[in-house]
């Protein structure tokens, strides 16, 4: 037993001594973990498409190194996410991991990945525990903290002087977070807070109750397919003209708008990004994304793109020497790249401090439904949990 132990130590010492060269790596391996199959797949595909475009714009390299992207499907299951992550760390020996669409998967994989000293760049999920007390030095979230976008709409409606509001969301963590975030900044009367069963297809009964309650306005959070159902049925019931509906970008992002049709036209939603955001990086991103994939990018694609640019900036700063973890971390923290959202910086918890906008669904000159900025809700908005994070 002792002899094998010694043997392993010897081998480990040898591997370590030869495996830690002080020169630049000759390639960078990136593990991309997201939900790539089943009903939640369109987000993962969008982020990956944005990420790939980012790599292309960095000269088919990241930080000067050739890139290999290994794609893994978490099937929207935390335990599968952990399996995929373990395989990527141990078998593929990836240098970094990115992607991660859903917060439940993020909560499961964040520690196993970062504990190995590997950097995790979240391109979507931003659950509150990881922004607060459980924040991690090797986790950088390039998208947002889950509550932030909803806080922006809450602020907008508060400033607008809306008095009686009706809240609706699916009954699961992200739905509850959305409503909690909204209430951080909206202080008016909440007529009712209705949680519907997750993936419930039909809302006729709830909409009849809503109409009878006669609120001034409605705030809802229904991402993906649920949103398509909800928005279509809201319009078909004739409620759109009767009671104004407000939501966030997740309910009205580019990937679902065409499936909603005119039911979505004119609706307001909050977001950190919009295709018409006026800066040169974003213009190039939107035009090239459209040319490459034949559709307008969603905010998810924008996040994937920024994830690539962030990695590029960090790796470039350490001259491609991926083993210089501390320097790499400092470089990431500086976020020294031109984001599609304009100015961008990380907070102490490695979550973004950024502006939030109110967008409206319009038809562009080609008759395609898309979002247009109509107002700004927040400037340099930090999340509500950064004080609980011990990192400085």
């Amino acid at each position, binding site marked *: 037993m002792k002899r094998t132990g010694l043997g392993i130590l010897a081998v480990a010492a040898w591997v370590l001594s030869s495996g830690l060269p002080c020169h630049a790596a000759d390639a960078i391996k990136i593990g991309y973990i997201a939900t790539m199959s*089943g009903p939640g797949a369109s987000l993962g595909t969008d982020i990956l498409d944005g990420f790939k475009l980012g790599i292309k714009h960095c000269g088919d390299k990241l930080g000067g190194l050739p890139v290999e992207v290994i794609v893994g499907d978490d099937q929207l299951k935390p335990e599968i996410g952990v399996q995929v992550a373990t395989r990527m760390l141990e078998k593929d020996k990836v240098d970094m991991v990115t992607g991660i669409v859903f917060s439940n998967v993020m909560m499961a994989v964040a520690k196993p990945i970062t504990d190995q000293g590997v950097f995790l760049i979240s391109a979507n999920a931003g659950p509150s525990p990881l922004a607060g007390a459980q924040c991690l030095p090797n986790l950088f979230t390039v998208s947002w903290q889950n509550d932030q976008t909803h806080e922006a709409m809450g602020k907008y409606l508060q400033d607008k002087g809306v008095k009686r509001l009706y809240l609706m969301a699916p009954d699961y963590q992200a739905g509850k977070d959305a409503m909690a975030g909204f209430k951080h900044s909206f202080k008016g009367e909440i007529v009712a807070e209705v949680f519907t069963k997750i993936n419930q*297809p*039909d809302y006729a*009964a709830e909409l009849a*109750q809503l109409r009878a309650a006669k609120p001034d306005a409605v705030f809802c959070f229904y991402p993906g397919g649920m949103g398509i*159902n909800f928005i*279509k049925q809201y319009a078909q019931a*004739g409620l759109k003209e009767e009671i104004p509906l407000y939501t966030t970008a997740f309910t009205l992002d580019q990937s*679902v708008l065409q499936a909603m*049709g005119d039911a979505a036209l004119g609706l307001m939603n909050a977001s950190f990004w919009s295709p018409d955001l006026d800066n040169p990086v974003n213009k190039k991103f939107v035009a090239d994304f459209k040319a490459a994939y034949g559709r307008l990018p969603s905010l998810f694609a924008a996040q994937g793109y920024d994830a690539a640019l962030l990695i590029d900036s960090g790796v470039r700063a350490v001259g491609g020497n991926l083993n210089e973890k501390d320097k790499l971390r400092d470089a990431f923290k500086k976020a020294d790249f031109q984001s599609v959202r304009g100015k961008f910086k990380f907070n102490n918890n490695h979550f973004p401090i950024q502006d939030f906008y109110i967008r409206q669904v319009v038809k562009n000159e080609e008759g395609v439904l898309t979002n247009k900025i109509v107002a700004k809700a927040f400037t340099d908005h930090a999340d509500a949990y950064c004080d609980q994070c011990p990192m400085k």
Partner: protein
Amino acid sequence: MDATLLLMQGLNGLQLGVMLFLMAAGLTLVFGVMNLINLSHGSLYMMGAYLAASLQQQTGSFLWAILLAVPATLAVGMVVEVVTLRKLYDRDHLDQVLATYGLILFFNELVRMVWGPQARFMALPEALSHSVVLFPGMRYPAYRLVIIGVGLGVGGLLFWLIHHTRLGMLIRAGASNREMVNALGVNIKVLYTVVFGLGAALAGLAGMMAGPILSIEVGMGEPVLILAFIVVVIGGIGSIKGAFVAAVLVGLVDTFGRVLLPAGVSSMSICILMAGMLCWRPKGLFPAHG
């Protein structure tokens, strides 16, 4: 809750029930006549919706899309029966569940490859896209009234088919005693293909009718499938009449449960209904097998 709201929720319950009936009718026929547990029934619902959405894009007409997509899903169902399910009739239910679960995965990925991961859109004809005033103070979406009409019409048609035609007689006979029908010289293979095709067409029709209300996306059939199975169990396996009564019952209980009960309890209301029904009538309301 005032009278208008009560009536409104009643209509909502009826409409949900009618949609469930279209799903469950096919399921109960296949289950009752062929003794096959078909988990991929929801996939046929999804195929119906996708085919109709594509056909509507091609033809520009909602009606044509429905008229063409129904025979198309019928054909899809028959192909599935001939290619895969035919080999499963003699196996036990667990093998059938496994194989038809495989079909769900197959159809989901097929749809993703053909139509892509993004949800599809199906527009309503202009005349049906608004809500109508039933009487002062009560507006109801016109299209949902159409769904109720179509569902009741299909229900009547099926009732006639089952009880007043030769095919219906064979289906009823097959549901009560399979071996005897076979012994009397009826080509049971063809009967099975026809029944499965019919079931597929009904599921497809449900998907098409749901298309303009719901998002047409990968996996849209699974949540409906579970409700449809509950309807089949409550109504009695193999009974169209049972499926209709149970579907409306489930539609009403679900709708009023969601409105009147707190969130946690309301999601259980249907399961409580099923459990109660199983205690009271273990074979369902109108069992086909005596």
